[in-house]
């Protein structure tokens, strides 16, 4: 496969809890093309989120190699990974993970604090991101003053405010009703199509997975089946 943004080669991930050894990923191989929208499905405990964490540089494999945009994440230091994430990856979580003490705008601004942008420039970027997710009028609201869908939109705005290459979504609609979930998926789809973001989405929901260009199923730490959506 050419033009691969993400390459996962013979990746093993083992957790040990006391004397117990849990093989979460077993020699996993995966390539994701630049601009692709990939859905990862599978039962709980199949290793979907672990794989997403490895691709996002949040965790390291026990063995094997994870390369994103030509960068070998398995060799990078914790500090380098943090800086890389700030520039290249946006994360969207099931439970939004907004900081409750900050307004929507301040939450979106968080990744920009790590850049050298001035306050005015940061505000401009935040306004653009909030406009893109349709929440300009909620900039000054705190998470508890927003609905679930609005919170997730703020989460998406935070994920894209740095204009990352890769969007990693972990059950982004898992906590939303069907209609709101549809709106969020529309937004993620638009980010993929219009803004050419590479999207990897973990989901249990077949309807959500159908929005992706490719669906992969995982079970017990391996990819068991691949299908085109």
């Amino acid at each position, binding site marked *: 496969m050419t033009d691969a943004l993400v390459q996962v080669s013979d990746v093993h991930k083992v957790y040990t809890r006391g004397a117990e050894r849990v093989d979460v990923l077993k020699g996993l191989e995966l390539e994701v093309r630049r601009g692709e929208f990939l859905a990862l499905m599978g039962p709980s405990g199949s290793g979907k989120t672990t794989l997403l964490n490895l691709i996002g540089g949040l965790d390291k494999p026990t063995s094997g190699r994870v390369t994103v945009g030509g960068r070998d994440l398995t060799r990078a230091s*914790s*500090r380098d990974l943090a800086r890389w994430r*700030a520039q290249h990856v946006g994360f969207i979580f099931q439970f939004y993970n907004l900081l409750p003490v900050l307004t929507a705008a301040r939450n979106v601004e968080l990744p920009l604090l790590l850049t050298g942008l001035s306050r005015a420039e940061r505000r401009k970027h935040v306004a653009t991101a909030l406009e893109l997710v349709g929440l300009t009028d909620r900039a000054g609201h705190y998470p508890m003053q927003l609905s679930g869908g609005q919170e997730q939109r703020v989460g998406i705005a935070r994920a894209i405010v740095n204009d990352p290459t890769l969007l990693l979504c972990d059950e982004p609609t898992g906590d939303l009703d069907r209609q709101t979930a549809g709106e969020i998926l529309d937004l993620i789809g638009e980010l993929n199509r219009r803004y050419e973001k590479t999207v990897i989405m973990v989901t249990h929901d077949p309807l959500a997975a159908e929005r992706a260009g490719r669906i992969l199923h995982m079970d017990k730490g391996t990819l068991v089946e691949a299908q085109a959506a």
Partner: protein
Amino acid sequence: MKYLPLLWRNLMRRKIRTTFTFLSIAVAFFLFGLLMAIRTGFGVGIELAGQKRLLTVHKMSMIQPLPFRYLAQIQSTPGVRFATHMTWFGGVYQDPKNFFANMAVDPEGILRIYPEFVVDDDDRRRWASTRTGALIGRKLAARFGWKLGDRIPIQPTFFRPKDGKPDTFEFEVVGIYRGATPDIDETQLFFHYKYLMERTGDPGTVGWYAVEVDDPARADEIAHAIDRQFANSPAETKTATEKAFMQSFANQIGDTGAILTAIAAVVFFVILLIAGNTMAQSVRERTSELGVLKTVGFTDLTVMALVLGEAVLLACSAGVVGLALVTLAVPGFAKAVETFLPIFYVPGRSIALGLGLALLLGLASGGVPAYLAQRLSIVEALRKR
């Protein structure tokens, strides 16, 4: 600065808890300021007393008088630049509770040996030429509302006039001195020794001698030389530096400095536990949020600095408030205790020390939570919701 809103918002997450912790720290620093003021009050005499000045007192007790004739012998002792005498009068103004130090002195001698008493030229002239004149400290004048020209009756306690006139000594306020620095006692009253002699018919004794030496390095040697002259006489002397006398006087009521330091240390230890507990709780409650910060690109060190910054912000802001309040309150306290502690203020170096302690408190209370936040695994943190 760009992280300040984040630090502030996190501190304000639990307003009541933060407020109580803030108040605890502020009160601790208020108390610290007061303790430092008390310590200064007890120690300032010792700090200021020069090695250059000696005091010669009766060997048996400071309250035993010494012959006036010793003055000439002391002044002729090699190494002595100047000597003068002072006599404790112990007089009372209206009521015994209106206590203040009042002494009979040589009018020129007192100003020469204590140049830290600053007197205007006009006052100096009046003081030298008025036999019944009194030179009083600025704070004493303010305390009783005395001004130049006022006549003030002072009731003696152990000196008895033998001139047939009423017991009361009446002095005219002819000069008001101020301290060259804030540490100088401005609550004393001095009057002419000759006036005391006239009224009491005293055979010629004084309370003690204040002696200025040429070379402070030879102070001990000169002190011994003075005492040797009066050895085996009916009034043997004990001479030591003014600082040694002050220290010995302070020691009679215990090692005040050590006691106050111990109290301050206990207070700060308790506050450290309170602030540390607040920070630990605060970090525990938002483990997943710290995970989110790391996820979006905050490095381990930045997250550690944020947690530490919160603790420092809390401790320093509370410390500054506590120190500011005590600085404002001390003049009020000073009035209440000026009878016992004429010098009562928070020195600048204590304020600086307090600010340093506030910073240290912040670093110490936030140290462990910050370290744990730095070590926090993102994956583990995101699981805790």
